[in-house]
């Protein structure tokens, strides 16, 4: 993996992208915008599942409108994040807090998928069993917590490890 990171960092395309101020700025803007879109839309769906947002709309209605933006935001974050990582791939690879960040983000994505599986099931039957409502609430709460955790981890990577 370290060899791959060394190769990636020295790749002429990556070197060119990393040394361009304009492209670096565009990538950073794409990363922040994607992250806001991803976390903002996910948080609203999670809060709806928890019963504290947009209560006069069904969870499916809210999710239908916002989930496409969650996945679009994720795509923007992954695309820009890859190029931001590639420029300092070795340093990122050796930084423990970056590993922690990636683990939290992956876990948050898994919980995002779980919420998207749960949402249509909340509206499918007229009376949702209490145990399912509790499970849905807990999954949404964990999803929200993990995304907030991923913001914290993202802020801590440059502060604690000096990369990024």
């Amino acid at each position, binding site marked *: 993996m370290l060899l791959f990171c060394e190769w990636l960092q020295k790749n002429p395309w990556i070197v060119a992208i990393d040394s361009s101020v304009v492209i670096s*700025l565009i990538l950073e803007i794409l990363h922040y*915008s994607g992250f806001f879109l991803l976390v*903002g839309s996910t948080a609203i769906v999670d*809060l709806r599942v928890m019963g504290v947002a947009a209560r006069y709309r069904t969870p499916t209605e809210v999710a239908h409108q916002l989930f496409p933006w969650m996945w679009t935001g994720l795509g923007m974050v992954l695309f820009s994040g890859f190029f931001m990582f590639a420029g300092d791939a070795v340093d990122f690879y050796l930084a423990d807090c970056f590993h922690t960040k990636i683990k939290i983000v992956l876990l948050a994505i898994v919980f995002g998928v779980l919420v998207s599986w749960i949402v249509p099931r909340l509206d499918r039957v007229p009376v949702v069993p209490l145990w399912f409502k509790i499970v849905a609430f807990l999954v949404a709460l964990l999803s929200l917590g993990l995304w907030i955790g991923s*913001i914290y981890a993202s802020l801590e990577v440059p502060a604690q490890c000096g990369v990024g």
Partner: protein
Amino acid sequence: MLNSFMAIAKWLQNTWWALYISGSTWAYPFVQLTHFTGLSLWVGTNLSLDLRLLGIGSKRQTASQLSAALFAWNWIGLCIAVLGGFMLFSSAATKYVPNPAFEIKLGILVPVAVLWHVLVQWHARKWEKGHRVSAFGKTIGLVEILLWFSVIIAAVSIPNYDAH
């Protein structure tokens, strides 16, 4: 004018909360987390509404229905972002006040973008024709997206003008 701002900044930086944030190992990252969580809610929900005005993505809900569904958490997001931002600013106010990127961000772009968003929320219904939005409404939505991109550009440029 700058002298009066600097005097206020010096006073702010010496308040008990500012000294606590700058002197504590956990408070600064916590305040940063608060600011970014609020921003994710605020910018994420704004972009979702603007993209709906532009007619991109799911059209199941009209722009005014989506605006009403997101309203409460949209403004809660702004309140959290402002609270976190004020705390961050307090902890290093004298460093931020003379920073041109910060001046442009907070003095021009953020107030204009927030007022523009109020306009979008108040008038979204007027620009709708069933599930379609007029060309004027689309333009208003596009301008808001560009305004928030400008805010992000100014924000990521702040460290480039940092004197320290």
